[in-house]
Structure formats: C-alpha cells, structure tokens
C-alpha cells in the first residue's frame, strides 16, 4: 500500500550571505546552512505522525518543504505516488495537488488576514481550490463551521473580534474546507490556554476520524504529542535522530537527545525536576557542519570517539523503531 506521503533524502540548504567586501568578490563557494539534511520518512493513510524538536532543528523548514511552500535543494517528496517536488513552489498553487495538502498554523491570529471576516477566510480556498461556485459557497462554509464547532454567527466577525479558541477553529475550518488528505499542524495549540487546548485537541482527533485525514503534528510539547500521535519523529539540527511508535518512544527513548527532551518536561511530581538529565552548552552550528561528526556530539552526555569520526545513520534497533546513534540504549540496555 503506497504511503500517503513518502519523503526520501530530503535536503534544504541555504547559502549563508557573505559579509564583507572581500569575501563577496572572492567567488568562493558560499557557506551553506543545512536546515534539513537527508531526511527520510513516510506517513501512511489515516496515520498521525508527530514531529518534535526544538528551535533550530529544522521542523519549520521541513513543514514548508512538505506543504510545498519552498523547494528542496535535493531529495524527493512523493504524495500518493506522485512526485510533488517536480512542480516548483511558485506554481504549486495551480496544481491539482494543492488542495490535498493543507496546513494549520501555530499563530492563528497571524494566519488570518485582519481585513477578512471568518467567512472570507474560510471561503477563499474553497473558491480558489475546490472551485465551489458562489451560490454553493455559503452552504459549504457553514457546513465546515458546524464541523469545527464554530457558531455561524461568528462567521461575520473579524479576527480581532474572536477569542483564541475561535480563531483556532477558523484556521482549522479553512484548512479542511477543501477536503485535504494530509493536514500539517504546526503547533496548533501552543498559544492557547490549557482549557481551550483540550477542546481543540479533541476536535482534531474527531475530525481525523470523521474525515479520514492523516496528520503531521508538529509540536515542542511532548505531552501533547503523546495524546494524538501514533508515531513520532524526533529532529535535531536538521536530521531525524529517532522514530517509532509514540508510546514506545516516550516510555523508552533510545537516543540521548530524546532522553534529554523527555526528562525536561514537567513530571507532575513535586520537586521531581531537580534530578533530570540536562543538556549543557549550545547546539553545534548548522552552517557547513562536519559531515562525519554526529550533530549531537559535544552536547551529548555520552560522546565517545566514534561519534566524532562517523555520522550515525538512522537504523532499525527494534521493530518499527529507528535511531541515529552509535550507542543507542533502550531502557538502560544497549541495542
């Protein structure tokens, strides 16, 4: 069964603009920032995959590559067997694939045009991508508003007149109005209060089942990822360092970075924090990284000789679990 989304050796490198007159004229090859490096994974139909990682790990870039807002420098992205990278980002808006991959943004407020009402915001993709004629538009927008729990009288309001939860619903409604198959959710609840977050997460879960959607759920909040995701991918400095079923990875992380992430989240045990695993220092530079040194070397509590001489590849260490580490440990036992 072809996966819905298959990403293979995806790369996005940005040239770092040289400062200073001499280097500009020197015509040397410019330094490259490796935002995403040799990333491969797949999302099956109906699956919810979580993507976790901290700032600078490349998840925003990866998300923009998958939703085809930017073009990769190398690698392939296939959606339902079709090569999406073949169509450049500039023209993707007119491709038939555009409506099948949609996104819900982190900052719901920023993702809504301040001069568009909720109705306009939801109707726009319906008109442009699904080509719903004007007379059927109202019905469709109302249908989707009902689905997302947005009361119809709010459709005439502007973003600044809506609450955080209502804006989040508008963002979700806009994304699903064109009946996409893959929905990328970029931290959809991080700006919401905890009580609103529950409601929105429940809504997303419900919609997933009702509309048969696949999700790529990006978040830095591991507790939230645990709630919705079947599988999880952990990213660090442009590479995937661990992947596997969410429950298994959270219960027994194999990569030292995943372990550090998990021990940093609140335990809900008073005073329990004081004993967690802590990362020291700053991450390595993503500019022209040494190709044969593990990206986590230097910050990793382990750091053995081999880590500085060979880049660990993402390899299977258990059924459905992959880790990119020379000395992965599951539950204290080296695998």
């Amino acid at each position: 069964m072809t996966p819905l989304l298959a990403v293979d050796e995806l790369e996005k490198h940005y040239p770092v603009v040289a400062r200073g007159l001499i280097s500009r004229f020197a015509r040397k090859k410019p330094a490259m920032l490796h935002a995403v490096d040799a990333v491969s994974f797949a999302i099956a139909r109906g699956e919810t995959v979580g993507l976790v990682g901290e700032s600078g790990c490349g998840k925003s870039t990866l998300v923009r590559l998958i939703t085809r807002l930017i073009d990769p420098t190398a690698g392939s992205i296939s959606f339902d067997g079709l090569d999406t990278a073949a169509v450049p980002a500039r023209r993707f808006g007119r491709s038939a694939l555009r409506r099948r991959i949609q996104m819900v943004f982190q900052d719901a407020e920023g993702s809504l045009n301040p001069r568009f009402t909720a109705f306009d915001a939801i109707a726009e993709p319906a008109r442009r991508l699904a080509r719903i004629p004007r007379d059927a538009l109202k019905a469709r927008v109302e249908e989707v508003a009902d689905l997302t729990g947005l009361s119809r009288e709010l459709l005439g309001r502007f973003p600044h007149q809506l609450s955080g939860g209502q804006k989040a619903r508008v963002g979700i409604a806009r994304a699903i109005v064109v009946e996409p198959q893959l929905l990328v959710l970029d931290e959809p609840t991080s700006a919401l209060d905890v009580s609103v977050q529950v409601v929105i997460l429940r809504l997303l879960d419900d919609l997933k089942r009702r509309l048969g959607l696949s999700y790529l759920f990006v978040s830095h909040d591991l507790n939230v990822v645990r709630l919705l995701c079947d599988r999880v991918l952990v990213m660090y400095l442009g590479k995937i360092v661990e992947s596997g079923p969410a429950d298994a990875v959270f219960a027994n992380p194999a990569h030292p970075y995943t372990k550090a992430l998990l021990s940093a989240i609140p335990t809900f045990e008073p005073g329990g924090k004081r004993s967690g695993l802590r990362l020291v220092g700053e991450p390595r530079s993503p500019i022209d990284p040494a190709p044969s040194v593990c990206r986590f070397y230097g910050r990793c509590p382990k750091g053995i000789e081999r880590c500085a001489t060979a880049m660990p590849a993402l390899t299977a260490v258990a059924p459905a679990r992959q880790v990119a580490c020379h000395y992965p440990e599951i539950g204290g036992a080296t695998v």
Partner: protein
Amino acid sequence: MSQALRHARYVLGENPVTAIAFALFLLLLLLAVFGPALAPYDPLASATTSALQSPSARHWFGTDQLGRDILSRIIVATRLDLGIAGASVILAFAIGALAGTAAGYFGGWTDRLVGRAVDTVMAFPLFVLAMGIVAALGNTITNIVYATAIINLPIYARVARSEANIRREAGYIEAARLSGNGEARILLAHILPNILPIMMVQISLTLGYAILNAAGLSFIGLGVRPPTPEWGIMVAEGASFIISGEWWCAFFPGVALMLAVFCFNLLGDGLRDIVDPRMRT
C-alpha cells in the same frame, strides 16, 4: 462598520483639536465645492478706484492693488489649491503605493529599481526639483500637478515598501499561498488592503505639504498665472505692499494657507489614531 464609527467618535471626542481640524476640513471642502457661489464679489472684477482698501464692513479682508475683493479671491482659490494638492497626492499615491508595495513584497531587482528611482528623486532638494520640472515643461496647472506628484512619490513608495516588507512573511500570506493564490493576487488582495489605512494617513499628512508646494511655486512665479486667484500668488503680490503698510494683501491669503496646512496635518494625526491606535505619539 458601526464599531469603526464608534471608535472614530471616541477619538474625535477625546481630542478636541482633531474635532476642530475635521470641522475645518469640512469647511474647506464646502468652500472648494461652492466657492464661486459663496463669494460676495467677482474675484476677477478689478476696480482700480477702490484699490488697497483696508478691511472694512464692505470688504472684510480688504482689497488688493487692482481693487479686487480679497475675501472673494481667497474663497475661490480654495478650489484651485485643494484641487492641485488633491490631484497630485492621488497621482503620487497611486504610482508610489503600487511601486513601493511591489518593491517591499518582491524584493530583489524590483526593490533595487524602485529604490534607485526613489533615491534619485530624493537626491534633489524637492522644491528645487519641482521648480525645475515646471520651468522645463511650462507654467500650466497640469504641470504643477505632475511636479508636485513626482516630489511626493518617494514618501509613499517608502511607506508602502516598509509596510509590505513587514507583512510579506506574515502567517496569512503563507495561508494565502496554500489557498492557491498567485503572487500578484496576494499583492492586490491581501497586502494592499492591509496597508491602505496607513497610506490614508500618509495622504492626509502629505496634502498639507502639497498645498504648500503649489503655493510656493506660484509664489516664485512658476505656478499659476495671474489673474487666476491662488493663495500663493496672492501672497507673492501682496508681499510688496507690506512695507508700505498694506498688510492685508499678503496676510489673509497667508492665514488661509496656514490654516489649510494645519488642518491637514491635524487631520492626519487624528486619522492615524482612528486607523491604528498603536501608532499614537
């Protein structure tokens, strides 16, 4: 809509000066539209017997060297001055806003080209540039409008460019791309409507400057030609009489100019408060 009106009423109520400016603006508009009908005398009718009479019950603002009623001339000049200023500002806005928005949104060569063009215009002392353009093309009202428009272009281009630049990476622009919008459509349907309010403020502020420009050009003889009544010419002609004690010939047109510019500046401030309270000083 009613919320906007309520906000407008609040701003006008909070700030009496803005309310006064608004009232003045309406008065100017009234004079511009109905001027010739409201003027007590024919602004062009000269009567050398009653030349240079000081303000009296018959001639509230006195008469000038050709016996023409100064009040009537001031009233009728409103249409011309506001007209020139308005036309040039609209022209400058239309071209400048579009060019600036494109420059700010697309960056790259569009930005460089527009940037260089704007820099070129701004390299000149703007009034001198206006003088040069009118001198080269001739003393007609159309040319005054063109000249004033050209020297006001840079400010619109700059404001539009920086506003477009800020919004270019906004979430809703990415969302618009996901909704299948091409770049041109995003520019017209998403970016422009959002920078329009700020541009409106800029328009109001520049109107004052444009009036001064038109008046200034006329003052040095490069503008409107006599006997057409225009505030700048009136000040120029009246200036030579100040020494001999006939102050009213230059004073009243000068006051009219001052009030108009004052009005537009205050209006601009008030508009800014209405449009974007965060920009309040």
